[in-house]
């Protein structure tokens, strides 16, 4: 079993930045939910409320040139990887100014310039390409790492096993970040996995694994930095298991009939990564409100930006099919 990594300091300044970024993701997601319920956003939306510390902790440990592949729950990863909220919101509104220019939507967010190789709506679908990207880095002797985000549900699908096997076999610089929120849509981990410690799956391939409390952004950042260094130093891929909590439904509108409401409320009270960091930083109400106002303004501005954006021409649907 991987041992829980011990704490080492991250500067308070950095933590405050992490806090701001996590709060931005939270407010962004709340706004998305609000605008979806208002009927403004088409499609199928999954928000990452409760999992902000994983996105920010990992992405803030990345170096320039590192790449990520994300999941259907991608807004947090995308913001944390550097996409401006305007571009993200514009994508959710299906606008040309969006990060995928209106071709992708919430489940297919790309920002290649910033190293985001795409969110994937097929669970586990993005993992093999991360192995291939890492293989290309190795071929070229580039000190870059490819990072896949995925959930506990993805550890049951073939691409997960094939990707980890190949990555370990070829010792490519990849980090597999498992956001273990204990739910595969509505199916609890107890019904989808015969083992509780998912790092054993990586260890079965001989892969180095690390475990971290995914609600503690400082811990995530520190352990992710070690995982990335391991991969970057040519020591092989790493499986990074982040214990996290999905504090909302699988999708916006999910009534969560499958979930114990008392347990959910308990988690919302005790496992909110933003509240935990706020306490750790000892932020005063004034400081908190200032930050909150700042990010709220960014989020509001992103909605204005998106609504003022350009609708694609219907016939643009026939572009970008081929290079």
């Amino acid at each position, binding site marked *: 079993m991987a041992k829980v990594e011990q704490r080492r300091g991250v500067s308070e300044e950095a933590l405050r930045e992490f806090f701001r970024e996590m709060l931005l993701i939270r407010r962004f997601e709340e706004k998305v939910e609000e605008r979806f319920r208002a009927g403004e956003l088409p499609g199928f939306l999954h928000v990452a409320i409760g999992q902000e510390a994983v996105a920010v902790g990992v992405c803030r440990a990345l170096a320039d040139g590192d790449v990520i592949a994300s999941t259907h729950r991608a807004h947090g990863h995308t913001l944390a990887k550097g996409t401006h909220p305007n571009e993200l919101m514009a994508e959710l509104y299906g606008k040309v100014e969006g990060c995928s220019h209106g071709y992708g939507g919430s489940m297919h967010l790309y920002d290649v310039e910033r190293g985001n190789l795409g969110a994937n709506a097929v669970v586990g679908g993005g993992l093999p390409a991360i192995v291939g990207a890492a293989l290309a880095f190795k071929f070229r002797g580039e000190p870059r790492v490819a990072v896949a985000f995925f959930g506990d549900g993805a550890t049951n699908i073939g691409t997960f096993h094939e990707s980890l096997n190949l990555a370990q076999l070829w010792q490519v610089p990849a980090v597999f970040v498992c956001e273990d929120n204990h739910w595969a849509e509505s199916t609890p981990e107890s019904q989808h996995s015969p083992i509780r410690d998912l790092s054993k799956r990586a260890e079965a391939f001989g892969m180095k694994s690390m475990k971290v409390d995914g609600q503690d952004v400082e811990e995530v950042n520190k352990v992710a930095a070690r995982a990335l260094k391991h991969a970057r130093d040519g020591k092989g891929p790493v499986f990074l298991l982040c214990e996290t909590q999905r504090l909302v439904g699988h999708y916006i509108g999910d009534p969560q009939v499958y979930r114990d409401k008392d347990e959910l409320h308990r988690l919302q009270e005790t496992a909110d990564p933003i509240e935990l960091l706020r306490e750790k930083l000892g932020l005063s109400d004034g400081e908190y409100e200032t930050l909150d106002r700042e990010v709220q303004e960014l989020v509001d501005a992103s909605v204005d930006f998106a609504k003022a954006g350009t609708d694609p021409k219907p016939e643009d649907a026939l572009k970008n*099919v081929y290079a």
Partner: protein
Amino acid sequence: MPELSYREAVRDALSQAMRTDEDVFIMGEDIAEMGGSMGVTQGMLDEFGPERVRNTPISEMAIVGSGIGAAMQGMRPVVEVMYEDFLTISMEQIVNQAAKHRYMSGGQLKVPLTIRTQGGAGWSPGAQHAQQVEAWFVGVPGLKVVFASTPGDVRGLLWSAIYDDNPVVFFEHRTLYGLKEELPEEIEPIPIGQARLHREGEDVTVVATGRLVHEALAAAEEAERQGVSVEVIDPRTLQPLDEDAIATSVKKTNRCVVAHEAVTRMGFGAEVAAVVQHQAFDWLDAPVERVGAKFAPLPFAPVMEEYVVPHAKDVLEAIQRTVQRGA
């Protein structure tokens, strides 16, 4: 000019690309020491080493998927899926990932990946080692689909596939690997999307792919003896399709037969028939005839396999049916 087999022609395209371009590499099951289950990559490990001639686990999703990732980083991987039947295992990666990354990203990404595979009946492997599944991929926007039938075509088209910036599913036919042709040393790339007129004729156009190109040419010889002049076209690229070449030919001959080894139902020939009726409706003197496998999985017993897949006589009978309709 050296004589190259279809197998050697594939190898020659791969090798010449790898000699000239560090971004090209190959991976697949048993392709290194063994030289591939069809012997296509024999000797390549010695020349290029194990980094660029990569044996993989039996792991089709990861083979194709890691090829996608390397391609998105600007390399030009050529992955081998040992049998077409095993494309089913990597279908998700081909259809949802390779074909769509460019589109879903709004044009930010390119996936210059070539997926080589082979299949074909005639040696009694049974139902899971010889299917012809090319038609499944023709309907997936974002993919290009190639099916070459001669050494020269397979070499020139594979070169173009490697240097195409899109994912290409590249079909080879097992029974053609031994087919030989004199070819110049220098590769002449064949543009993707250009049909080949194999034989000119006046009375009937046969549009054939893969092994059936050769069956169609044999049928045309026999038809000639019976006084029927047959034109034979191999589209070579199924997507994009050279519709003009087909329509032009049918407007001349007024009759059309489509022929492939895959099952007739929903086969590639169905699409060709639709193109012909739409573009050459007023020129047609007879219904488009279809030649393909009977609607059954491939059986094991040689007599049954022989019965299920089409041969030259089936093409000849189809030719005769169209000319019997009268003008």
